């Protein structure tokens, strides 16, 4: 069984590297915080695909899947374990 928390650290690091100085909890909505736009969301998709060597299913490429570090970790866990991604 893949633990989603394993994937959170590199994702959090990627975000904080681009927006240094922010305190970011895994459940914080990065879009609601106001400093992330949809172009950065696109970079996040590319980052998780490259870092975790996965292809995110097209139906998962939406803001809701990338809203928090927690959700992104869950998404990577689902894809790497080969499970179908449930609709959030």
């Amino acid at each position, binding site marked *: 069984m893949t633990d989603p928390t394993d994937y959170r650290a590199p994702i959090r690091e*990627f975000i904080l590297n681009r927006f*240094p100085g922010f305190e970011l909890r895994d459940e914080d909505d990065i879009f609601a915080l106001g400093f992330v*736009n*949809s*172009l950065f969301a696109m970079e996040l998709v590319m*980052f998780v695909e490259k870092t975790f060597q996965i292809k995110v299913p097209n139906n998962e*490429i939406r*803001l809701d899947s990338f809203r928090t570090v927690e959700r992104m970790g869950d998404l990577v866990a689902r894809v790497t374990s080969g499970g179908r991604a449930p609709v959030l």
Partner: protein
Amino acid sequence: MTLVGVVGAGVMGAGVAQNLAQAGHDVALVDNTPQAVTKALSTIELNSRMSRLLGGPELDPDTILGRIKAGTDLALLADADLVIENITENWELKRGLYLEMDHTVQPDAVFVANTSAIPITRLASLTTRPRQFVGVHFMNPVPMKPAVELIPGHHTSPEALEKVRDLLTSMGKKAIPVNDACGFVSNRVLMLTVNEAAFLVHEGVADAETVDEVFRSCFGHPMGPLQTADLIGVDTILYSIEVLHEHFADSKYRPCPLLKQMTDAGLHGRKSGQGFYSYGAPAASSAAVDSGGSRPTAATR
């Protein structure tokens, strides 16, 4: 449904081709190197996948790519009803292309110049079809932007203008008509703003993040001018300001040396992975690129 030729498969050309395919048109996409064509098709596939994320419709990348025939031979454009040109903002390159296309493309076809600054009447004069020549200034990213500048040249016929307006409507674009002048409305103002913003960084008045923060927080702009520069392409900004400088012979359009240096160094913005900001995506070919930092490159000057 129309067969539309798209010449130049860079950021703008790929966006135009994708938008046309989304609208159900058949597209012939041409660039002068196989690498550029391959990269454009990859970009279109990626952007189709990302469409919903960026606030657009859900797209099937296979359907979009299935409507696009791509290659390096201008003969692909021979039967097109319209050809949209999107090559580098360089007079000599555009001149050579239009002279060749005028022979290659069927005589009834309308030519559409997607240019940032070069006057449409001047481009039309290169061809034997100035009545079938229209300027359209698309915005980047093309599939996401709802409006364009529509620019008739001096000789443009009402029929040609209507044909292009219909095509734009099918692409979901509102066409805002403006008269022909170097830089039209948008880039006459925007390029000066970006150039001056680059001077502020160059002179050490503020770093790129601070300049953009002023525009975002004080004016409520969604992006600052240097974020916009990275999105458009620093090289494209430089070429556009050079065209304005040459055309008006007015020193207020003198290009900022920092834009020149960044262009030479391959720091072209989002498309190269590094510009005023670092993106960590595709690395530019230049060894001068610093791939490590997250701070704006220019801020370290």
